[in-house]
């Protein structure tokens, strides 16, 4: 337990100390909110879909958590490059616990970052109208954070440097975001795209968030929750397995 706690604490300290990183990572969600939210808002309204900011905000919040979480996991490569990973890999603590501590730390960072963007969305005019479900929305954010930190850790366990990083961003993380229905409603897209969206784990995160925050959903909150839980556990298992097999 101490090991999990100390690794969690380390991730948090690193986060709090990198203020420039905190500010930098707010740029993208802000841009999405302003450019898309206000830019496409009038068209969305004309299509009788209601307020686009209301629809978009959960997607932008999920995006922030997704990116921060994957980055937190991928940070492992940094630790490998600068040697700190060795310090943890020879420690008398099962590696699965080390992976768990790191992942929970990274996920907490992603969650905090997500909450900052929630505040930004509120300023931009977003109003959640299901206050009773707010704890459930928080649970969704936490699950997205854990799931994708674990994904990042699993990937980073297989890489020894940052050369494959762009590949992962462009062919895994970006598609997961853009195809998740974060930016558009899923009920009207072509069938093929629906299928793609339904194998994207983030889709259930976005849908769950929307369900709990503004009461509109595609799959439904219970199904979203169940699927996210299962995938998060699977990714933690996979990440733990790959992490414990790292050789230096």
């Amino acid at each position, binding site marked *: 337990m101490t090991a999990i706690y100390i690794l969690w604490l380390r991730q948090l300290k690193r986060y709090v100390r990198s203020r420039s990183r905190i500010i930098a990572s707010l740029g993208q969600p802000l841009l999405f909110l302003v450019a898309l939210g206000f830019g496409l808002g009038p068209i969305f309204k004309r299509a009788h879909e209601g307020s686009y900011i209301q629809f978009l905000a959960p997607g932008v919040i999920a995006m922030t958590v997704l990116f921060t979480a994957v980055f937190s996991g991928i940070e492992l490569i940094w630790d490998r490059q600068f040697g700190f990973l060795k310090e943890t890999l020879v420690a*008398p603590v099962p590696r699965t616990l080390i992976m768990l501590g790191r992942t929970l730390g990274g996920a907490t960072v992603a969650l905090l970052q997500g909450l900052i963007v929630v505040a930004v969305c509120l300023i931009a005019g977003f109003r959640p109208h299901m206050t009773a479900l707010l704890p459930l929305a928080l649970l969704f954010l936490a699950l997205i954070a854990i799931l994708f930190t674990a994904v990042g850790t699993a990937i980073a366990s297989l890489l020894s440097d940052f050369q494959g990083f762009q590949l992962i961003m462009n062919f895994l993380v970006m598609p997961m975001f853009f195809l998740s229905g974060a930016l558009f409603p899923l009920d009207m897209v072509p069938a093929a795209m629906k299928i793609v969206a339904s194998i994207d784990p983030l889709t259930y995160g976005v849908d769950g968030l929307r369900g709990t925050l503004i009461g509109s959903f595609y799959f439904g909150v219970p199904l979203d929750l169940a699927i996210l839980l299962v995938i998060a556990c699977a990714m933690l298992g996979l990440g733990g397995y790959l992490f414990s097999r790292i050789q*230096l």
Partner: protein
Amino acid sequence: MGVIVAENLVRQFGDFAAVRGISFDVPAGEIFAFLGPNGAGKTTTIKMLTTLLRPTSGRIELDGLDPVTQQNEVRKRFGIVFQDPTLDDELTAYENMDFHGALYKVPRKLRRQRIEQLLGLFELWDRRDTRVKFFSGGMRRRLEIARGLLHHPKILFLDEPTLGLDPQTRNQLWTHVRQLNQDEQVTVFLTTHYMEEAERVAQRIAIIDHGQIVAQGSAAELKQQTNSQSLEEAFLALTGSSIREEQADSADRMRAMSKIYRRRSS
């Protein structure tokens, strides 16, 4: 049977054999030095003994346990000071120490006491709350060593611990290591480039070259075997005088890059 045992240990990287069938046996309580030119296979051997790398073939044993199959048990028995940096730059000196102490389950009170003692010994106590990224190379190295000595393991690996240290710090280190060895019978496995150091500290020395052990024995035995006046002479007689190239790994390349970057931005 000794506390560190290797039998016909082999490690291949692709078709390059870094370690080619070495055997040694270090009895409990001994200080054992592994000498060899760059790229001879010293660090690879230590990585295998410390569960970071799986051997291609052969047998290793640490305190009667197998580092390949009983990793967690093995990790409870050793401590290590690595050759290259393994500190967290964003944490302070004290936090790096405390992190280590917590991972190695050093009880809190004892932890605080030892951190103060070790940081004092290596003259870092005044800088304990400074983040490591503001430390000079020498200070980092000292912190690295202080951290390695925080918990008292059964076996202590020191991979070129004195590289880049001034004579004062080197002296502190060896005094401390010898004390640990005498007071707590800690077995020490070290590698170094400094012959006089090996001669002064180690009871037994193995010389490794091109992945093979070319000679083993006390410093006196090695000198006698090669008819040399000094250990340095014996070492050169055994390993030849050509200079070895070590391949830079990706971490080295990256570190070099980040140095260039820092220089540019400052």
